[in-house]
């Protein structure tokens, strides 16, 4: 059986999630015995348009990206959104709070009209996505899990529950008890609760769980003397594409 051909693509992003793939080190060597890498600009110069699986990092913020992404979809059998920018829009969605013209002027000044810009969207707003690897950045183990599942033609084991589960398993003291805002109770787990473990409130980089109890989360904030605005401002760091979801 020939090895599946895998390509990595960058859209609007820091390419940090692809960097996480490169930090797999020894596992990476094992991985390339199972797959052929067709394109991966962060790691190699060769490129090819012949691939089966496309890992797409980044969000869509310019019209030209839409065409490029559609072409990838046409060529690939499987498309995987890699990291928060691709899965939920991510940090790039911050600009959606402004008028596009204003954003253009702030960023490009006199050159503004040479660079078009559109409200940021996750890749699934443009094409059909088969799998999602959440997080900013992605979790190494989850990348491996999804890749293995694809090779085995199985459903990847990705948690649907909130961050609190992993946080409590690690015996962290709840950040609400320290007067901090945390989106853990409404955010998808899989990150091993890394931010709360290091005393930083969850900002929701993996997106909301399927069925969050937002009104109860808001009451929880109030009870700890925190405001919904504080939570929204935390949520907006990654969730700007779906502000209405938290509101």
């Amino acid at each position, binding site marked *: 059986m020939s090895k599946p051909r895998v390509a990595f693509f960058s859209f609007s992003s820091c390419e940090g999630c692809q960097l996480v793939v490169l930090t797999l080190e020894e*596992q990476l060597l*094992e*991985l390339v015995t*199972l797959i052929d890498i067709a394109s991966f600009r962060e790691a190699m110069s060769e490129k090819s348009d012949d691939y089966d699986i496309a890992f797409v990092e980044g969000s869509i913020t310019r019209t030209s990206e839409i065409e490029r992404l559609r072409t990838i979809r046409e060529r690939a059998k499987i498309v995987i959104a890699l990291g928060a920018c691709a899965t939920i829009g991510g940090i790039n969605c911050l600009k959606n709070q402004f008028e596009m013209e204003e954003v253009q002027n702030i960023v490009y000044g006199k050159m503004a009209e040479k660079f078009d810009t559109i409200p940021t969207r996750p890749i699934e707003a443009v094409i059909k996505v088969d799998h999602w690897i959440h997080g900013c950045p992605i979790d190494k183990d989850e990348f*491996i899990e999804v890749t*293995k599942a694809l*090779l*085995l033609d199985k459903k990847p*084991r990705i948690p*649907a*529950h*909130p961050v*609190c*589960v992993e946080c*409590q*398993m690690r*015996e*962290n*003291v*709840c950040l*609400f008890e320290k007067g901090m805002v945390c989106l*853990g*109770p*409404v955010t998808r787990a899989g990150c091993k609760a890394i931010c709360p473990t290091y005393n930083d409130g969850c900002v929701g980089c993996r997106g909301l*769980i*399927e*069925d969050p*109890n937002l*009104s*109860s*989360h808001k*009451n*929880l904030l109030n*009870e700890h003397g925190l405001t919904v605005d504080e939570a929204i401002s935390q949520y907006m760091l990654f969730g700007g594409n779906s502000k209405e979801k938290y509101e």
Partner: protein
Amino acid sequence: MKDVLIKGKDLSAFCHNLQDSFIVYGVREKEEGHFIFDEIDEFSDSLEKYKPTILPPKKYLFPQQETLLRFDTEPHLEIKSVVESKKQVLFGVRPCDIHGIGLLDKIFTSDNEDSNYLRKRADTLIIGMDCMEPCYEHAHCASVGCLDIDDGYDIMMTDIGGVFFTTVKTPQGEEIVKKYVEYTIAGEEESERFLKLRSDRKGRFDNKIETEVSNLPLFFKNADNDPVWKELDERCLGCGRCNIVCPTCYCFDVYDCMDLTMTSGERCREWDACTLKDFAAVSTGENFRSTRGLRLRHRFNRKFNYLMTKYNTSFCVGCGRCTRSCPVNIDVIETVNAVINNHNNNHERE
């Protein structure tokens, strides 16, 4: 072995000496007011400041994640069971958690024997630390019959004022006392002081449940349509923390994890939680308990009805961890009493 006395100042040496033969897990303060069981070099239990640890010591018998077997598919299928276990001492386990472990013993031996749990359990010695005062406002051990304990530990220590009155229950307990700590045989005066302290404590532990605990299955059997579940449905975040911190929750998910060789791998288990949405979802997409309220109702039934009926004992040990950890203050005692009162009010109306 007769009851013995161990001086408070000798506990550190006791812990230290035990390390010659065991991994010693004891209580330490992780952050102010928050305690955990952890590997310890010396005795660090804060005794009168103690509040139930974030996770119960069950994690050393039934860990969060655990490998059950390893398999190879080439050259031919080969499967080997994996049981990771080492001699360990749990130092300073309170009565509620000893009861919790006793209940897990029942669970993991009845119907099917769980060899991973049983091996770890056989390799474990339990040094109990008795409670003379309620440790915090959420404790309701006495309400569910889990304050007094006379089994399930190897030795039990009670602070009778700088000196620990120590009951030795098992031959293994006798061995560690003789080998690893200085002790004297308890005299009549100390025995009397111990008994008096034990009987005096009764008044300090309130009964918080508004019925005999043995009546609870009956109340819960008739509580499927209780309005309390609707109210909790609105409040519950479905975050699973109550399950994760519970000394008697034992549900787990089993999954296979292939190595990158794609020819070998492991079968593992991980704690699961019945308050999570996926718990009762099936592959065709249906969910037997699709709302948070239904899932919480199920959890309460597990503690006070289903398992209680099967084993004839409360599956809540009264540690109060679920109440303490619930971000939205869902209180186990308030909920149980609501079920009792709603039932009684309905009955009066009829």
